[in-house]
Every structure is written in C-alpha cells, then in structure tokens.
C-alpha cells in the first residue's frame, strides 16, 4: 500500500466517523422509519377471552357474550368505528375486495381512539326476543345488544345440510380518514354464526 492509498483510506474512515458523530443531528432532519408494515388488527374472542367457546346454539331467554378488539399498527393514533350488524345466510356481507361495507342497517356501534401500538377491547352481550318457528322458517323479531333492544325482523329457512336455522352477528371496522373528513370502511370484518334453537 502506498501513501496515496493510505490517504484515501484515512479520508473514508474520517468521513464515516464524522457521519456517525453527525447522526443525532441527522435524525432531526431525516426521519428513520422502523417497522414500515402498517395495519390494523381486528378480532373476536369468546366469553372466556379466548378464541374458543364462541356462542353458537342460541335461543330466547339467555344472554351471550363476546369480546371485540382492535389493534393499531398504523404509525399514529387512530379513530375507529365498529358497526354491529345482523343477517341471515342470504343477506349481504361486506365486500372486502371492493372495500364495500354490508348494506344492512347498523344495530349497535362503538367509537374509540387507539394509540399506535396499542389495543382496544370491549365486551358485547347479546340476546334474542320475539323468536318464532313457522314450518321451516324461523322468525327473529328483536336482538338485544348491551341491553338495548333492536328490531331486526329477520327470517331464516332451515338449512337441510347443516341442520339448523342460521344467522350471523358480524362486526365491521371503519377508520376515520382525515383527507376524506369522514369514516371509511377499513376492509375488515369479523363475525360468528348462530344456530337459532326454537322449542
């Protein structure tokens, strides 16, 4: 190695060390992004706060419960909205690919704020009233969610394959869009199937 090569090596090493020394100032100007994958989690847990023992066979006169939760990994605090809806097996679900929420009316809703990297969770209780069976059709008049009565007037035909009258309680996740100045469907929904037992 001749003197010129040593000089180049010294210059490069000095510049490298200078860059390290300047990094606190650079961090003020250049934001260093850590963990660039941004998303929201959305979950539903059973009454035991586990992903098991979800209510399935349901009837009149009993109260059921689930936990609904949201995790924010979007890089900043978020304003979320969860819509609770009820359907039979023929009524529309949200279209995730097309970012279209279900056209069914909202029964209950949650509005909450979640800091980045934090979670939110709430208990939801539900029950049924005014349920009747006529031939092969079950009629559900009211759904009671968190002690509030909602008239749904929904019917379900007997499912001959799965032997039951099926309904679904589902939850849509919406997020406040600052540019749109309104809530936008966040392409996520969770739900549970319920088999209505009528005596």
């Amino acid at each position, binding site marked *: 190695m001749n003197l010129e090569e*040593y000089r180049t090596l010294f210059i490069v*090493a000095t510049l490298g060390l200078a860059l390290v020394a300047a990094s606190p*100032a*650079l961090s*003020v100007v250049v934001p260093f992004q850590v963990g660039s994958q941004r998303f929201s989690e959305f979950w539903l847990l059973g009454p035991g706060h586990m992903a098991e023992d979800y209510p399935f066979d349901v009837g009149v006169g009993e109260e059921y419960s689930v936990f609904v939760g949201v995790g924010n990994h979007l890089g900043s*605090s978020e304003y979320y909205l969860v819509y609770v809806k009820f359907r039979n097996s023929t009524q529309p679900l949200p279209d995730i690919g097309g970012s279209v929420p279900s056209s069914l009316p909202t029964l209950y809703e949650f509005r909450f*704020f979640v800091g980045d990297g934090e979670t939110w969770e709430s208990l939801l209780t539900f029950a049924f009233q005014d349920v009747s069976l006529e031939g092969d059709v079950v009629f559900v008049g009211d759904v009671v969610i968190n002690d509030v009565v909602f008239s749904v007037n929904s019917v379900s035909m007997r499912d001959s394959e799965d032997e039951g009258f099926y309904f679904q309680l589902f939850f849509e996740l919406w997020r406040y869009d600052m540019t749109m100045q309104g809530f936008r469907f966040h392409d996520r929904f969770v739900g549970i199937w319920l088999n209505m037992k009528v005596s």
Partner: protein
Amino acid sequence: MAIWVGVQVSGCGIERLRDVGFMSFSKLFFVLLILSVFAVPIFVSGVFGVDGADGAASAVYRAEVAVVSAYEAVLDAEEVGADVSGLLAELNVAGGYLAEAHVWFGLWDFDNATRFADLCYYSVEDVRSKAVELKNEAHSLWVTDSVVRMVWSLIGVVVVVFLGFVVWRVFKRRYHRRILGLRPEVVSSES
C-alpha cells in the same frame, strides 16, 4: 239613460255579489291555508317528533364536529412527540357517548340521543385546548432537543475531522521515516 244606469247599477251589483262570493271563498281558502301552514308543524312534530329529531341531529352533529376537531389537535400534538395517552383516554369517553347518541338516534329516542350527544360535547370540550398546550410544550422541547443535538453533532464532527487530520499527520511522518529507513545506502566494497 235611467234604464241604462239602472242596468249598469244592477249589472254592477251582480258583479259585486259575484265578487263578494268569490272573495269570501278565496279569503276563507287563504285563511285556511295560513292556518294549515302554522298548524302542520304542530301536528307533525307532535306525531313524528320532528322537532326532537332536528334538535337531536344538530346535537349529534355538534358533538361529532367537536370530537373530530379534538382528534385533529391530538394528532398534531402527537406528531411533535407529545405524550397524548391521557388525551386519548378522554377522547375515548367522548367516543363512547357519541356512539350511544348514534344508537339512540337510530332508535328514534331523541331525548337520549341529545343527552348523550351533549355529554360527548362537554366531555371533549377542553381536550382541544389541552392538546394545543401539549403540542406547544412538546414543540419547545423538540426545538431545545434539536439545538442540543445539532451542537453536539457539530462538536463531534469537528473533533473527528481534527483527530483524523492529526492522526494522518503522525501516520505520514512515521511512514516517511520508515520508508527513509528502508532506503538502500551505498556501502564501499573496498576493504
């Protein structure tokens, strides 16, 4: 002349009679119309609760605007590095009330909708000002921190460059000495 006048008079009289009849109907119609205009809102609001709906809708709207405005201020504070967890907790209380207001509004229970919307509005009322305060505090802290970082970085860069120069000078001197030490010398071969 007299006959003509009489005819005219009688003609006028007939015309007036008709006018009077027409006027009375139109007056009656007009009076009924005015009455109905004033009466309809009373009946409609009594039957459908339109006044309550309007009041509830405006209360819910006012609460929504207040929540979004507070949220924007909280985001601004968060952007400059303020700890907004306390404000988010306050916003969550307001969000809960607002959700309740929407639920009751959907059920046409306008009294409860208004009550919860007002609760939301009053619970979020001072969040915006707190967020602005936090933002200002965080901003001044950020400025101080940035200045300190800049100064220390500048000192660090100057020290590194100076030390690099000194080390290079020492290295160069030693290098020359070693090279010179390796220079071949002419040695007399006569003995």
